[in-house]
């Protein structure tokens, strides 16, 4: 009747059942919260990405336009990158190890990659400012934008 270990086994059994129930509840809540009902077909996001010049008050600002992109994990990002500026620029999506060649004034390039990593990723100009060679502009460091990749 009073076998050693019986009490401990019941405690373990009770704890296990509680753990299992709480796990199932958390798991089902998470599935509902994320709205995941099945695999989504990946999309292709084709966009123009240009060097835009904003002017006013004697100040010129050069920026990538658009400065913000949002895609979902697995989507293909297809960028038509163009430089209508008077100076050369070079586009790089650092985290995805993708970059164009140097884009001289009027030049364009195509950059395609799959957004297979979730996170917030910077894109920028990687051609340092060099007035002698017509490379980029004094606000080189501000030529930045972000690609946000959300989970499936």
């Amino acid at each position, binding site marked *: 009747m009073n076998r050693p270990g019986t009490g401990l*086994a019941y405690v*373990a059994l009770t704890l*296990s059942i509680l*753990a*299992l129930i709480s796990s*199932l509840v958390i798991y089902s809540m998470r599935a509902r919260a994320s709205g995941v009902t099945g695999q989504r077909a990946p999309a292709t996001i084709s966009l123009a990405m240009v060097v835009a010049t904003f002017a*006013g008050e004697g100040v010129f*600002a050069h920026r990538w336009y658009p*400065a913000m992109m949002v895609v979902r994990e697995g989507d293909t990002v297809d960028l038509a990158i163009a430089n209508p500026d008077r100076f050369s620029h070079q586009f790089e999506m650092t985290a995805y190890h993708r970059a164009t060649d140097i884009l001289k004034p009027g030049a364009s390039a195509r950059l395609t990659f799959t957004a297979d990593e979730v996170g917030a990723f910077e894109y920028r100009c990687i051609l340092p400012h060099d007035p002698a060679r017509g490379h980029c502009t004094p606000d080189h460091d501000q030529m930045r934008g972000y690609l946000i990749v959300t989970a499936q």
Partner: protein
Amino acid sequence: MTTSALSTVVAVVLGATALIFNALSVPQPVPPAAVDLSLIITGLGAVGAPAEHHFYNPQMVVARKGDTVRLRVMNLSFASHAIQVDGYDARTRILFGGEQETMSFVATRGGVFPYRCYIPHDPTTGACSPDHETMIGYLIVLDPLR
């Protein structure tokens, strides 16, 4: 088989199942990032004419909950403008044309937060512009981080 042994076996099986479910439930950690972005106050008008329509570029900033948002606000407009993010304690001082100020905050709350100019249009002082009411952009904070 004794009751003790049986319940021990059942406990082990249930415990292992619970562990597997827990492993499935825990999302892969995604580290927060810094969204460090230039935000320009600018305008568009007819060709060769002064700007009539003022806006923030970008008009939409997206971050994930936990990300640090740093906005380098620069006013390229001829009128003075400012910016504040509704729902966040983030605003710049009044910026005259050509001035800039950086504001930084952590996106601690998920949701949609408008950013707008907080100084009303006043032609006598050159504060903001007649289209003050439409100088609105949106900060989207994705929650959860993933």
